[in-house]
């Protein structure tokens, strides 16, 4: 037990000493790790920001149901109740004829002709139910319910989800769901490539020192004793790289969000990105740390393996 403890302490110590003595190699390896970890981090945040933007866009999608003027209060309440229980309905808003008129007047304040036209007749605007869907991709489900004969008979006009408007909504939802998937895909690709690069870097670093491994083997060191310090050293790379990459991205977002104050870069809302980063700071740091530690440990374990094999050929 005591001997095991001594060995463990020696392995950790040797890893630390190797890290310091191989300073240049360590810096080179860490530089690669910092860059790749930062790329992954930025792509994750970009993806989150992008998703947020898309969300805002799809949040505006709704269906309006226009009711006949002859409808009774009871019929209206029944209808609201029915729609409320349809799957995929997130939110219902009832706009009475009067409210509709008010809104119309407000929207067209500058247009005297229209205001004049509408005041000369009895209120021509129908009472409306606005339905927000949970998933804009499945908006057709709601529409199908609204097309049922008993409900359809209460409507003065076809719902807003028809004709050109339907086409536009369908296009937007299709595009956004594609973009969302592309974003996730991009993050995965970046993460994968980064892992390969880091893995390769650590392999190269160990390849440079393969003689040491063989010598230790000849002296009768067992596998853990030889591999341990290399794994510890790589874990130190991982930890430092993670911390540096998170601080680097932090600095980057602070600078950018003040430089592009209150503006956004196309689909990338830089303020939201900054906010997202600040909100998830600890989670991000923890994730980066675990990625760094995991890749460091795994790649050094794999890289040392080939030099630690015993020859068994006869």
């Amino acid at each position, binding site marked *: 037990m005591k*001997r*095991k403890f*001594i*060995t463990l302490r*020696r392995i950790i110590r040797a890893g630390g000493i*190797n890290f310091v*003595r*191989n300073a240049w190699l360590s810096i080179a390896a860490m530089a690669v790790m910092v860059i790749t970890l930062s790329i992954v981090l930025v792509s994750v945040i970009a993806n989150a920001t992008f998703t947020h933007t898309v969300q805002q866009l799809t949040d505006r999608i709704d269906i309006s149901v226009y009711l006949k003027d002859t409808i009774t209060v009871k019929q209206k309440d029944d209808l609201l109740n029915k729609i409320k229980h349809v799957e995929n309905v997130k939110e219902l808003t009832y706009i009475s004829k009067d409210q509709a008129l008010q809104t119309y007047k407000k929207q067209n304040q500058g247009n005297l002709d229209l205001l004049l036209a509408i005041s000369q007749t009895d209120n021509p605007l129908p009472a409306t139910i606005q339905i927000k869907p949970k998933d804009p991709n499945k908006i057709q489900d709601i529409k199908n319910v609204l097309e049922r004969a008993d409900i359809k008979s209460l409507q003065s006009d076809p719902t807003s989800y028809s004709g050109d408007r339907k086409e536009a909504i369908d296009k937007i939802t299709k595009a956004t769901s594609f973009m969302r998937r592309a974003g996730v895909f991009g993050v995965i690709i970046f993460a994968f490539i980064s892992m390969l690069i880091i893995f390769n870097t650590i392999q190269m670093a160990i390849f440079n*020192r393969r*003689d*040491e491994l063989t*010598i*230790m*083997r*000849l*002296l*009768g*060191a*067992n596998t853990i*004793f030889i591999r341990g310090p290399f794994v510890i050293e790589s874990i130190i790379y991982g930890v430092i790289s993670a911390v540096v990459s998170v601080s680097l991205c932090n600095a980057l977002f602070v600078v950018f969000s003040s430089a592009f104050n209150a503006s956004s870069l196309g689909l990338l809302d830089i303020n939201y990105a900054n906010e997202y980063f600040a909100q998830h700071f600890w989670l991000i740091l923890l994730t980066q740390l675990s990625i760094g530690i995991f890749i460091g440990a795994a790649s050094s374990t794999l890289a040392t393996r080939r030099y630690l094999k*015993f*020859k*068994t*050929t*006869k």
Partner: protein
Amino acid sequence: MKMILLDRVTKTYQRNPHAALERISLHVDPKEFVIVVGSSGAGKSTLLKLLTREEKPTAGKIIVGGIDYDKLRDREIPLLRRKIGVVFQDFKLLPGKTVFENVAFALEIVGMSNREINHTVPRVLDIVGLQGKEKRMPMELSGGERQRVAIARAVVRQPKILIADEPTGNLDPKHAWDVIRVLEKINRYGTTVLLTTHNQDIVNRLKRRVITVKDGKIVSDRANAEYKL
């Protein structure tokens, strides 16, 4: 009990149909000092690699210090190597460690406490004449000094056998003799020494048992012998 026992050992490498060693039988007693001579490619290195278990024999039996190599499993190889001290022509020091750390490493492997290490290493460095150079890196030493570090590392665990594979091959005559004197000293302390060398002068002046290997066979094995190929 014999310290080294080889019984009809044959080693054939995969890509070479010609046997590197052919039915070699050899006995070495405890505390003996044996010199193995032979030109390059005669099979000396193969012989040593079989003893350190860097290679497995194609046929035949090897027993070193009571350990039967047939019964040795791969994960027991480190334990075997801890019982054999090896010195190489190219020193094989760990470049990133100081003189002290290189020697101490051999003891760290076996889990010796720091107190024991701090006690033992300076004494061994003293034996090989390297006192005061504990903190040097291998790069800062001469060839002869490096080889003496390697010897210190090989003997610090007090192995029963010390295998020295052309330890003087890279050294000038003065340093070569320094190294040989250290080997003799270690032999006097009771360690079996197996030395391979090309150096005729050393062989002739040592007046020890000389085994001559040629084309994978032992062609002569005589006590107090001289160098002859």
